[in-house]
């Protein structure tokens, strides 16, 4: 201890206000994903709307048979699947940014993000199940059509 210590005030080093650096450019990937998926979703959604609401008989054509007809083709199955996944992640990521902005408390942020992840996962899983296990004309054990199936199933067989 030198005598200078008694008179020289100790200057505390200024601490940075932020704690911890980023995880592997996560925010950069998030930013790029939002732009990429946004452009893709524009094409996917507006084509979807055009096919369903404008082409053919327009909005009046939508019934069980119309959906069954669309999902008979793997193109529309994949189309709807991509649209579902992208829209859920795009929207979910947007919600994540809002939670980061507005939820001040750590516990609140964690709770909301857990809820958000659960919602996104549930909807994606349920939606994918519907798209890929969809069968408009289910058969019973003996190979006959189940009661209550649409009338067009008779023609398909």
């Amino acid at each position, binding site marked *: 201890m030198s005598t200078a210590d008694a008179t020289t005030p100790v200057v505390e080093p*200024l601490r*940075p*206000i*932020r704690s911890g*650096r*980023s*995880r592997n*450019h*996560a*925010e*950069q990937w*998030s*930013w*790029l994903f939002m732009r990429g998926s946004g452009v893709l979703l524009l094409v996917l959604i507006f084509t979807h709307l055009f096919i369903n609401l404008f082409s053919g008989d327009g909005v009046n054509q939508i019934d069980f048979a119309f959906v069954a007809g669309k999902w008979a083709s793997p193109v529309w199955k994949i189309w709807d699947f991509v649209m579902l996944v992208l829209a859920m992640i795009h929207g979910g990521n947007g919600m994540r940014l809002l939670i*980061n*902005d*507005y939820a001040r408390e750590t516990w609140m942020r964690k709770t909301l993000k857990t809820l958000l992840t659960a919602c996104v996962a549930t909807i994606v899983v349920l939606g994918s199940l519907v798209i890929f296990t969809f069968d408009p004309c289910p058969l019973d054990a003996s190979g006959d059509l189940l009661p209550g199936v649409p009338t067009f199933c008779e023609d398909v067989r």
Partner: protein
Amino acid sequence: MTATAEAPTKAGEVPSFDVTLRIQRMDPDGTPDHPAGEEYWEEFTLTMHGTDRVLDALHKIKWDVDGSLAFRRSCAHGVCGSDAMRINAKNRLACKTLLKDLNPKRPITIEPIKGLPVEKDLIVDMEPFFASYREIMPFLMTSGPTPERERLQSPEERARFDDTTKCIMCAACTTSCPVFWTDGQYFGPQAIVGAHRFIFDSRDEGEWDRLEILNDKAGVWKCRTAFNCTEACPRGIEVTKAISEVKKALNTGAV
């Protein structure tokens, strides 16, 4: 004194008018009417001239009406960046805003800049703002021996960061940013402008150190291009454009 309304204006005389200033006040020690730390509005009606700025009106209040009014100013000519405040809900420098441009027929509201802790009246604690600036290392970083003469640069190289050299650190941009209001962790537009000034300087070699800092989760990706910063800047810096150039450098890997 009786016929002032009909008195003809002498040649060269500056017209005067009455103006009401509605100022948000806060005294950390309290006043007889207001407890310590309470924010309240107080109105002052003054007779001012067409050549007067908001700062002149504040001076008149402080010097002639109420000496307890607290605000910052140093040069009073738009260079030091001390007197940024929220005037009629827009961040501006009080010394660069003429009263006559603000429609003096209606009360002019004056608040401290938002998002930083108020210390008294229009004075805020600027430390979080300066801390962000320090973090982006606002100094020349080079390697190798120091040259014996100036580090030369072509006019084109200089033009790349010319806009961001104009910053006077008044905090008008950072405290107009909606992301900064809700999340004080965000570096804010000013720190990114300060980093831009060195990142795109051909003489500086620390660009990737700074870009890595701005790649942080509190960095440039928090910017939602609201353009409030560009609108608020009293020096006319295209702040949002500068932030986008930093984003582009991070995405392309080319400075």
